[in-house]
């Protein structure tokens, strides 16, 4: 078993089409508020775990580090995240960049979705826009998206 063999299983999965590509110009990075959004189904232990085919999102607090993995797929390595959350959710790295003045600030809240979706319509039409509006209203300018 190798990573290449696992990747090959999804090589033919059809990707979604977008007729147009929205493009937002951010403020200078040194003034931008940056959030992380991951599809790793992370959540806090006291928050609701992800159900199979869960299309919702969970809010991850920037001042906690008790993130747990709720992803249902067995098709990725989890030990990297287990040993260092930044392998998937680079919150400590963002804190360092903010301290250096490279980015403006780290958002107070970040989001997690479940990436193992076969039907993306709910995320495209409902929870995706809702999560985006939540971040926008919180003053986020730039979102770093991380998969597993």
């Amino acid at each position, binding site marked *: 078993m*190798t*990573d290449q063999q696992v990747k090959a299983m999804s090589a033919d999965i059809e990707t*979604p089409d977008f007729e147009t*590509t929205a493009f937002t110009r951010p403020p200078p990075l040194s003034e931008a508020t940056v959030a992380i959004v991951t599809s790793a189904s992370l959540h806090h232990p006291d928050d609701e775990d992800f159900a199979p085919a869960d299309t919702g999102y969970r809010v991850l607090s920037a001042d906690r580090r008790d993130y747990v993995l709720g992803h249902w797929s067995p*098709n990725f*390595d989890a030990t990297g995240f287990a040993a260092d959350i930044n392998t998937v959710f680079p919150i400590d790295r963002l804190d360092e*960049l903010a301290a250096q003045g490279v980015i403006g600030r780290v958002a107070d809240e970040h989001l997690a979705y479940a990436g193992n979706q076969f039907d993306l319509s709910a995320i495209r039409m409902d929870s995706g826009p809702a999560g985006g509006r939540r971040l926008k209203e919180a003053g986020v300018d730039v979102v770093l998206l991380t998969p597993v």
Partner: protein
Amino acid sequence: MSTLAHVFEAEGLATIALGSQRNQIAGTAPPRGLWCDFPLGRPLGKPADPDFQHRVLSHAFSLLDADGPIFAEFGEAIVDDATEVMACPLPPRHDPDAHPAVDEARGLRPAYDRAVERYGNRMGAGRVVDVDDIVGAIESFIRVADGTPWKEAGIPGIPARVAQDIRGYYETAALGLADHVPSAWAGTRWFLDQTRTGEVILSAREAMKEAGVKGPVWFYLTPGDR
């Protein structure tokens, strides 16, 4: 991830999507996409390597300077060629009356506890099976491997989720046994290829398949290439 990038940009957020599968990120074509040829599950590449992670982030944030949609490739690849084999010492037999997998799981508990104390419980048992009940969960899969129909075997939850907790227990224990963070998939290979419980899960999966159980019930007990 790339789908969310399109959605978020439409909401007025600038995004950078990291992707580990080239065909997926290239096909979905997010406004700013960075393909990193890293193992699945490690989008920042290397655990406990802040310098490497910063290089990934630096490249990612540089895409914000583009005047329009852009797709880029990170210059360093991490290729899993399955050459790292974990040599975690498995506990010696303690209770000759117990099934070898049960005896093994009990013997790994100190290593599991050490890893949780060091790293926290981020992927170990507890999603549906508490760590104190992990042996009972293994026993249910032993019954399936021995021919009991899965619905009558006492599996304490959706089989895939229970198997995930068992695998998480073992891979967390491996972190407690190793003196370094193993390369991607090394913990999974150790669990499935070298442990008695891994053998049980594979046998139970095969028994369910042979019994005509619906694919999604048995398929997700292990990574799909098995």
